[in-house]
């Protein structure tokens, strides 16, 4: 089936070339980091994780969000998602691969990464994160490829793939739960030391992930003859999922705010104060965080009112608002502010360097290229069937 990605319109090849160019720039920037060490990034002794790990965290959520299609379709027989499920699975695969790449580019000694397997450490959450991420990648590769292959030949999917599909549902929840445990189990990092962290992660994932998927569906409808929502109603159902997940996400965030501020324990609210109001005169994240707050409420509002929710243009704005709000919250602020103030109650700020941004864009370009290839295959198979 992969040969379908090798033929395409001029527009397709221009897009692929553009992505390859971005990847080349990112690779060059990574070579600079590889040769000169992580000193070329904005990370420091105090803020020892930055943009890379934050992207990893955000993308685990995107990967997990495929379950929001798989679960209604396979468990509740919600037929309307039938044409969309494959797009969810084919979004999960590049998302997991991007997660892994962000871990690799964050390592000080990437050549030693196999030490994680050579010296397995079951007491480390990272060990389990490796297992669930690799497993999730494998599950989605097998399920996506097999179901699409069967569809192409006009057969129903083989029976053996069903149990794997069912397994993918709890597995998707597990990848984001374990990722939350990376942070939520650390003593002395008060922003992260919260029982609701995993729930918050899942809520934000099920908002941002399907929102990204919806935007991809709109693009697919524009650039191809394949309609992911032929009967109508699938898109609006997914919009409702995004809306409720985002409301839950905001609710969980308010719970954090209440506990931290009403209890009055200074350490518990210090990082939140830093992100929302600034601390000791440092406030570089404040405007960014308030942008996220405004966009979160704007997005929910757009997705609530039928007139804005049904309108393609406003719906796109609403979904973009939700994606950006979640990206700011999870793909930047949560990880960075976890280190602020440091364990000496001093504020050390972090800002990514150009090199770091280029590497990040390079990894995202690899992900976009993979999405393009996989979606091209899926769309070509569907177009072939339709004609």
């Amino acid at each position, binding site marked *: 089936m992969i040969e379908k990605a090798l033929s395409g319109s001029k527009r397709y090849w221009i897009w692929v070339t553009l992505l390859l160019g971005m990847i080349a720039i990112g690779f060059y920037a990574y070579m600079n980091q590889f040769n*000169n060490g992580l000193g070329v990034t904005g990370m420091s002794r105090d803020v020892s994780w930055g943009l890379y790990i934050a992207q990893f965290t955000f993308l685990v959520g995107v990967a997990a969000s495929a379950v929001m299609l798989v679960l209604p379709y396979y468990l509740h027989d919600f037929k309307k998602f039938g044409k969309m499920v494959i797009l969810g699975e084919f979004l999960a695969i590049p998302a997991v691969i991007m997660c892994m790449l962000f871990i690799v580019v964050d390592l000080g000694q990437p050549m030693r990464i196999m030490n994680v397997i050579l010296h397995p450490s079951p007491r*480390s959450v990272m060990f389990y994160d490796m297992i669930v991420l690799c497993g999730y990648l494998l599950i989605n590769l097998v399920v996506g490829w097999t179901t699409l292959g069967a569809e192409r030949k006009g057969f129903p999917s083989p029976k053996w793939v069903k149990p794997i599909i069912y397994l993918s549902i709890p597995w998707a929840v597990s990848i984001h739960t374990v990722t939350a445990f990376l942070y939520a189990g650390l003593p002395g990092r008060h922003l992260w030391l919260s029982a609701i962290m995993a729930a918050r992660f899942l809520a934000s994932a099920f908002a941002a992930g399907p929102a990204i998927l919806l935007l991809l569906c709109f693009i697919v409808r524009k650039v191809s003859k394949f309609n992911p929502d032929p009967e109508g109603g699938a898109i609006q159902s997914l919009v409702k999922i995004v809306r409720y997940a985002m409301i839950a996400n905001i609710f969980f965030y308010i719970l954090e705010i209440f506990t931290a501020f009403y209890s009055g324990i200074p*350490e518990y609210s210090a990082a939140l104060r830093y992100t929302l109001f600034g601390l000791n005169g440092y406030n570089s994240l404040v405007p960014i965080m308030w942008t996220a707050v405004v966009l979160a409420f704007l997005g929910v509002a757009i997705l609530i009112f039928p007139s804005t929710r049904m309108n393609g243009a406003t719906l796109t704005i609403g979904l973009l608002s939700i994606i950006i709000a979640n990206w700011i919250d999870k793909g930047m602020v949560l990880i960075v502010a976890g280190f602020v103030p440091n364990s000496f109650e001093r504020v050390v700020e972090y800002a990514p360097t150009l090199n770091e941004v280029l590497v990040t864009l390079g990894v995202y370009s690899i992900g976009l290229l993979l999405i393009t290839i996989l979606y091209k295959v899926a769309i070509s198979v569907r177009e072939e069937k339709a004609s």
Partner: protein
Amino acid sequence: MSINRRQFLRRAGVITALGLGSSFVISGFRKKEVAEAAGFAKAPKDMPAKRWAMVVDMSKFKTEADMNKVVEACHKLHNVPDFGNPKDEIKWIWKDDYHHTFAGGFNEYLDENVMHSPFLVTCNHCDNPPCVKACPTQATFKRPDGIVAMDFHRCIGCRFCMAACPFSARSFNFKDPRTHIDEISPEYPTRTPGVVEKCNFCYERLADGLQPVCVEQSNGGLIFGDLDDPNSEVRKIISTKLTIRRKPELGTQPCVYYLVGGGEHD
């Protein structure tokens, strides 16, 4: 006997699996032997202990220069590079004031001098080290004598231990450290870029029957010994005087104790 393609592939698969499987079994056995052979040989003058601990008696440090001497001796011995900026900074033992060292216990009526008086801080070699739990490769581990040590050759530089440590005791080699060492000390290895490091309670000196270099340079301000031995000086101080530890509420059981008010002890 003729076999078709499918049978050939199946048999080839089984044989490969068997071969790979048994090689794992063999290497599993060998690993144990290698580990034993490479294990810590007891050095002739090794100072044995069940639980190394340190007491910091700040009253013995008369001036900041007394503290700087300690810091410099440690960093010189362990080839700790000086990058000259706080972003890439590597430190094993350093100074911070009372207010920040014992963060969380802010008291606005506290005497200004106490508030800003410098304290020596280093790795606490916790009984329940969160860094050891976090490490995905066991590159950081707790020795039987309580020292939390690092294997610089195994560390993958993921910095999970730095996120886990509630005391900011760990530093990462963001840049090549070897180009920023004034004079390389032959007593301790230099590091590659991309690995984490921290205080090791001078286990290389303990193996030679020597006290940690900071203790040696401290004029009695740092007292080091076996907490498990009821007759050790550290144990006597901790059981008879008022000592405090950093962030005891986290349950990591730090093994660096701060003697408050000083006073006489033998």
